[in-house]
């Protein structure tokens, strides 16, 4: 499922944030686009939050 992040370690969590800069100079801060937490409930909560932000955003 898109939105996962993997790292070869015993890490607690990992995330990837992205900022897009268009060729015309426009900047789009996308925030955290991919997230993983050792606790599956935290991963689930992040996905739910992402869906919610899309709806209200």
């Amino acid at each position: 499922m898109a939105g996962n992040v993997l790292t070869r370690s015993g890490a607690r969590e990992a995330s990837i944030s992205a900022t897009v800069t268009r060729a015309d100079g426009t900047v789009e801060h996308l925030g955290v686009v991919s997230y993983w937490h050792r606790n599956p409930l935290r991963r689930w909560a992040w996905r739910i939050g992402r869906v919610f932000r899309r709806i209200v955003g």
Partner: protein
Amino acid sequence: MAALVVNTGLANITAAWHAYATRARYLQWGEGTGQDATATAIATAGDTTEARVEGTTSQQTTTTTDDTYRVVGTITAAGARAITEVGVFDGAGSGSPPTGANLGIYGDFTVINLASGDSIAFTVNVVFDQA
């Protein structure tokens, strides 16, 4: 009785990773998804001919001092792209799209559509704790 890595030990982990000569720091994007913990490369390079970008690594603080390893780097599109994944490798690799070296960190995400000249600045954080 308990045995654990204390907070200073966590900082040692990220310090060691940050100082390691062949640490994961080269960013490559792609147009696939779904790699798992056994992956050695991004899922689909597709038409992403861009070279891997050497990111800047650092120690950061999320919960306890220096518990986070960070890689920051920006890749610029050489043409229209539909980016859905990024990998962090321990080497630049070779070829176009680049291959080789070892994948250390991987993430996939909802598509980011780009035109030629657009770029994405990625910030990759890996946080450690005692559990």
